[in-house]
């Protein structure tokens, strides 16, 4: 059996954070007697990722996603638990490990701000010991896939956010890592750029058989790329499985949309499910899955319905419910 790309067992991270009250007295008190709070950012998280998988990592802000990624990439030490990534202990940072991973952070940049992208790539080629001819080949290949051939000689500070993010991807994948950690890779990008980034990541994974762990607040990223999701909330892992399973478990309802002959008040529909929209010629309600057939039959029999459709609730809504209730 193939060894897992990532193996985390009972992984925890506690931060000591100085607590300071506002105002002058708070400042003086803080100076004389500093108080710290222990914040458990990640709490006994266990999971495995097999080579070649694309896993979405979901959670609201402050849930512990980025802290977990930092531990997996060796940036920070875990407080407790076992961690093995590509057969290495990440925080020891052996070169053999670092050459096989990358971390892309949507809101941060590794490129040198005042120089053209090519200069940062030159450094990466030397640091990762890539021969010049091979470095040129990779530059051409990735620049073409990302459609940024024309901007490589421009200073990074002159690039648009979308161009910069694509250039960041190029630099981050230049050494052909086997394991990609992506933290909000499409943050702030317009729809076209988001699609381009997703397409590039999919192509890269197909060409090089890479493993991806991806966090994103854009469900479209997760839906387009990830076959499996990990849901983390307040530091604890709530769910580990496929996306359909999550919807199945957490959203035991369907959305019923009605097109009506005459307007209907919300009160008239209240008995059939949770009314999301009513009062006009259109109505929308959430119906428990086990009652769906009966409710649909009754709606059609009782009201003058011009059209009726049943859909899965939007993934964003499902995830929002998971986060707000803090359980699956």
């Amino acid at each position, binding site marked *: 059996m193939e060894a897992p790309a990532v193996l985390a067992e009972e992984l925890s991270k506690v931060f000591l954070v100085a607590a300071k009250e506002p105002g002058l007295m708070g400042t003086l008190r803080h100076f004389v007697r500093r108080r710290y709070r222990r914040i458990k950012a990640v709490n006994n998280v266990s999971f495995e990722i097999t080579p070649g998988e694309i896993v979405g990592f979901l959670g609201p802000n402050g849930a512990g996603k980025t802290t977990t990624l930092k531990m997996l990439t060796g940036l920070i030490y875990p407080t407790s638990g076992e961690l093995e990534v590509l057969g290495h202990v990440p925080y020891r940072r052996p070169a053999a490990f670092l050459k096989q991973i990358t971390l892309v*952070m949507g809101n941060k940049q590794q490129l040198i701000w005042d*120089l053209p992208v090519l200069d*940062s790539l*030159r450094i990466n*080629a030397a640091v990762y010991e890539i021969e010049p001819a091979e470095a040129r080949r990779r530059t051409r290949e990735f620049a073409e896939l990302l459609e940024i051939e024309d901007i490589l000689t421009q200073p990074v500070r002159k690039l648009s956010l979308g161009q910069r993010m694509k250039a960041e991807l190029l630099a981050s994948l230049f050494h052909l890592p086997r394991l990609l950690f992506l933290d909000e890779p499409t943050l702030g990008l317009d729809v076209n750029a988001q699609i381009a980034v997703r397409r590039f990541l999919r192509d890269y994974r197909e060409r090089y058989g890479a493993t991806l762990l991806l966090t994103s607040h854009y469900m479209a990223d997760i839906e387009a790329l990830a076959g499996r999701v990990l849901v983390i909330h307040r530091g604890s892992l709530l769910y580990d499985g496929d996306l359909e399973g999550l919807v199945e478990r957490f959203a035991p309802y369907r959305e019923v949309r009605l097109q009506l002959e005459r307007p209907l008040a919300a009160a008239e529909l209240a008995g059939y499910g949770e009314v999301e929209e009513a009062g006009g010629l259109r109505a929308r309600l959430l119906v428990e899955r086990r009652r769906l057939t009966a409710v649909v039959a009754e709606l059609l029999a009782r009201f003058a319905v011009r059209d009726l459709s049943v859909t899965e609730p939007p993934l964003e809504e499902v995830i929002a419910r998971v986060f707000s209730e803090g359980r699956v």
Partner: protein
Amino acid sequence: MRWLLRKAWTLVAVYFAYMLEYRGEIFFWMLSGITPFFFMSAWTVAAGRGLTVYGADDYARYFFAVFVARQLGIVWVHWNMSEDVRSGKLSFRLLQPLDPAWRYLADHVGERGVRLPLLALVGLVFAWLYPQALVWPGPGRLALGLLAAALAFGVNFSASYVVGLLSLWLEDATEIYNLWYVAVLFFSGMLAPLSLYPEPVQRALVWTPFPHLVYLPAALWSGLEADAARGLLSLLAWNLFFFALGRLLWRLGRRHYSAMGA
């Protein structure tokens, strides 16, 4: 070895290009380091009145050499490190199979490539104003002075890096480096040739790195008395000391890094 040289060359070349973007700032930064010329004018006036051991030309020559030695020894890695820790940029450096210290070193060496031609310009102005102060020190003293300046840069760099590493505990350690700078100002020969300091002070200072950081190369270039062998050995020892301390703090401090901001 081939990759080591390629890495070193690439880093220095790219950071040289980076620093060229800031040539204007570097020029003004260099001009802000003209303090030795103020002391030069004070000491040459005193020499003109027969109040000091050395003549006016000796002081002009010495303080110009001090200016050069100081320019070659300027470092800011404590600031780089603190900034990278605070902003989380250190994370990107940690993700690569290269110790972040090498990038900082390349940053400094690249900057020297921009600073040296500007320094040559200042030298030409000095030669035009004080032609009588120019004396060829001879190839031996010139080379020893350059070696001393290189080792002094090493001590400054590694001491500054050690201070920068404290950011892993304190988040911002840049102000601590000012203590080092004060010691350099008073005990390195920037205010006056150390040979004019009281004998007990000179004896005590020999055990510190400070007199060798500026006075040693400046004295070698300007023809003042200097114990080159002892000074160079001392600089070597201080380099080793700060290097070892830096490695230790890096190992310990990494555990404290929270990668905040990234």
